[in-house]
């Protein structure tokens, strides 16, 4: 049972980790929680579903469908993320820190209601795309979907890590997060780096949305809220602004939730409570998160 819950938790946690990265990338540079990120994730699911229902996609082999849906969902979510930044946050760049936060909540409410009113207020079934089978591992089993979720997530996180550590743009991104003015002095166009952070965060959110849709089999206009808050918790747990921390936090939250649901009698009824208990604990005991640094307020 333990191994089984670990596998379930790993799949769940991979999705949280992908979304948590979107929060952390933006926070790292702008010191702002992008509360609209959960809605980028939700829209990503609808983008993915839209891509899958295109007639020229639905006739293709499963692997091609998956790849196209992934790319389209990532692309559309990336553009959405960057667009939100341009419209709702950029004009508030020199306002107080509270202003973009409120703007983010506004965008979130707006997008949810947009889908509620003009797309659907019902749960929509989401295709599994790939054939379902199970791999036996002793007393536990891992499904083809879980393998897919974990594999795609880790692949994307690997790409991200390479991008941030090794490429010149990635280094510019870290420099911008470290000291924005000095980055400008070095000739780095930091406004573009900010757009890039939203693009990447959005793309990862879109990928997470496709995986989440396939894994759970349905999507809805309000699906972003809970998942978003859990992913945000994951980012805080890992140390918000820290990329490795977001991945670690996501996996930990996923595993904790699975173990809690599996071991505590009736735990699946209130599985959501575990992440939030963690959030409260982290804020009380180690507010900078597992891998975060204790920083003094910037002046």
């Amino acid at each position, binding site marked *: 049972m333990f191994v089984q819950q670990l596998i379930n938790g790993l799949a769940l946690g991979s999705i949280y980790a992908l979304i948590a990265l979107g929060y952390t990338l933006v926070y790292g540079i702008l010191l702002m929680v992008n509360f609209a990120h959960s809605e980028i994730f939700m829209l990503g699911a609808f983008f993915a579903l839209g891509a899958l229902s295109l007639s020229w996609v639905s006739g293709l082999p499963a692997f091609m469908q998956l790849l196209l849906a992934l790319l389209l969902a990532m692309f559309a979510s990336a553009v959405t993320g960057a667009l939100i930044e341009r419209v709702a946050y950029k004009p508030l760049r020199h306002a107080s820190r509270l202003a973009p936060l409120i703007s983010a909540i506004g965008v979130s409410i707006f997008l949810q209601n947009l889908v509620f009113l003009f797309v659907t207020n019902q749960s929509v079934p989401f295709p599994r795309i790939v054939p379902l089978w199970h791999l036996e591992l002793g007393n536990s089993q891992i499904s083809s979907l879980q393998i897919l979720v974990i594999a795609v997530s880790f692949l994307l996180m690997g790409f991200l890590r390479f991008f941030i550590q090794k490429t010149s743009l990635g*280094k510019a991104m870290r420099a911008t997060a470290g000291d924005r003015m000095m980055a400008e002095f*070095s000739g780095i166009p930091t406004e573009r780096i900010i757009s890039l952070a939203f693009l990447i965060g959005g793309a990862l959110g879109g990928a997470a949305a496709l995986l989440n849709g396939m894994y759970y089999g349905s999507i809805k206009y309000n699906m972003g809220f809970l998942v978003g808050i859990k992913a945000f918790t994951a980012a805080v747990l890992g140390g918000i602004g820290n990329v490795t921390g977001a991945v670690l936090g996501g996996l930990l939250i996923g595993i904790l939730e699975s173990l809690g649901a599996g071991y505590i009698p009736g735990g699946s009824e209130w599985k959501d409570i575990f992440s939030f208990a963690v959030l409260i604990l982290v804020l009380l005991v180690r507010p900078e998160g597992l891998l975060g640094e204790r920083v003094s307020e910037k002046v």
Partner: protein
Amino acid sequence: MLECRSLSVVYGKKISALKDVSLKVDQGEIVTVIGANGSGKTTLLKAISGVFRLDEGEVSFEGGALSGVPMHKIARLGIAHVPEGRRIFSRLTVLENLELGAYGQKKAILDKRLEEAYRIFPLLKERASQLGGTLSGGEQQMLAIARALMAEPKLLLLDEPSMGLAPVIVEKIYSTIKNISRQGLTILLVEQNAQISLSIAKRGYVLENGQIALSGLSGELLNNPLVQEAYLG
């Protein structure tokens, strides 16, 4: 090369940080601006590199006006700013700090400049894979200057390179600055330590409460009784 014409910068509509400051830096010169803490030296450099919007006046660089030009574009025009407190990217390695100084350049050019930077500061080569934040103050100052040189600037803005450093290190850094200038780089040097900055500069300005109080050749300023009393103690 650089000309500031009656610059005024006002903080928050009330406190005037710079008032009618005019100065000129010619090709190949070291020009220094000395002044006490809070006299507006840092503000002046930040106004030149585009951090502050000017309330009045104009900065022109090689004949072109800089007002409204974003900071990173000013940097790309050939003005490299080594800010107060050095501002090393502390979570990035020494090598990455240097690479970012030449942001946007091709690998071949980067390698060539890196070699040159290591020639001037051999110590940085040894420290290449260390995180910037783990360097000592003097090493960080060298890195900050080296990072600025990676851009192959036409004009170097130096903000208090002696700050918080032991006299031996200060001397070392100043002799490096002098050497760099001999190779033809134009330098605008802001300092509280008037003695040392006037010793390498050709000309100097004295900034007091955001206004230019005095200006002249370094030798004249060093012998000026007002300067001696206020800044050379």
